[in-house]
């Protein structure tokens, strides 16, 4: 488990560090990700992303945070808070795409 986490970290860091243009997920996967953002992330952040027990994820709320930080939080969580790591089912590319969508607003 720990190994897998480090591997994911490494991949994410490598992808971000090289600044490679990230491929967008397939249309079907995009739909799944948006559904998951609203429904599952939404259980803490609100279905409309206006916040709940977790902070809001609307454009104004995430504008001041770098894409790299947000991707890192999605993939690896925030220790000491309820935010868990999602790398087990969301890839670094998908997380980066989600961050862009969050910043644009759904």
């Amino acid at each position, binding site marked *: 488990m720990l190994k897998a986490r480090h591997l994911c970290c490494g991949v994410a860091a490598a992808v971000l560090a090289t600044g490679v243009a990230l491929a967008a997920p397939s249309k079907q996967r995009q739909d799944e990700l948006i559904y998951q953002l609203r429904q*599952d992330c939404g*259980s803490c952040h*609100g279905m409309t992303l*206006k*916040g*709940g027990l977790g902070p809001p994820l609307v454009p104004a709320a995430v504008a001041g945070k770098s894409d790299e930080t947000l991707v890192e939080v999605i993939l690896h969580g925030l220790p000491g808070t309820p935010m*868990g790591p999602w790398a087990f089912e969301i890839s670094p590319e998908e997380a980066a795409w989600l961050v862009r969508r969050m910043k644009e607003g759904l």
Partner: protein
Amino acid sequence: MCPTLTFATARLSILATVLALGGCQSAPRGTGDLGVVIERAAGRVQVVETTGRTALYTIPELGDLSHASTVFSRDGRYAYVFGRDGGLSKLDLLGGKLVKRVVQAGNSVGGAISQDGSLVAVSNYEPGGVRIFDAESLDLVADIPAVYGDKGATSKVVGLVDAPGRRFVFTLYDAGETWVADLVDPRRPTLRKFKDIGRLPYDGLITPDGRYYLAGLFGEDGIALLDLWDLDAGVRRILDGYGRGEKPLPVYKMPHLEGWASAGDLLFLPAVGRYEVLVVERDGWRERGRIPVHGQPVFVVARPDGRQVWVNFAHPRNDVVQVIDVPSQKIVKTLRPGKAVLHMEFTPRGEQVWISVRDEDRVEVYDTESLERVADLPVDKPSGIFLTARANRIGL
């Protein structure tokens, strides 16, 4: 349907009588088998009845119901629906319509109704605090901001319940405090505050006798317990360190402490960050054991007779429901209703359980003896299911 009419057409005098009484109106009905199912994404509620297992009405335009919960007036006629967007809606279950709706805060999550049914309280995240409304008119009666510390910060409020003596009890998520609000004089609530109950309390519940309040902690392994019969004794910690120092697993949906999964002298609670249900002896509040389960438990609810406990789970293991046999503390059935099982509600005496399966757009009904599915209803992204039997139970 108007069955009298067929009969009446043959007898004109009876027809005349029927028409005089209002013709084809349906017969009066009680409310004991009614309830609501939240359609979380559409912002609608379905009014259902559990005898014939049908939907009677759909009530739309209730705002953001993505974490909605409901309490009932004492006669079971009105449902108060608490929406995520701060909306408080009063629904007439017999008339199938919205009576009144106020948007009382920016972000809220739950509510409670007072012992005498006269006050409705709402717990808010933004602005953090509790607001109290007249149950009849939904007029604001009192505002209790959850201000803590010496810098004037406000906290999100969770775990709001009613308690005997016209009191409400709730917990401050950010502050780690439990407050008891006495509303004997509703316009001047008096507060008793209990500080340092533990880190990140995520929800609370009250025992059905109205005596004990328990706040579950996310930030540490343990439960904060308050004896409402002896407030001077303060909050004490039970199940301290139940994780035994093991690193918790990530939690992809917060557990809920709703209802009282108790059976005889045992209490069943979701462990946080562990695939376990904790079993606690009410006498002495000691751990009796723990039951390994399929995933991170979200709801752990006892059948009304206490013979079984039903458990659902957090994402991504949320397609399963497990049934625990209380005497043996063993899982006797693993059901797979479908993706995203969000809630379970027993019929008043527990012969059936209604289960919402969000991603299947379906509510399934199971017989709790055969553990077989006996019916299902089409419901758009169902979440909470709330039946009017709650009207007569403390804390629900």
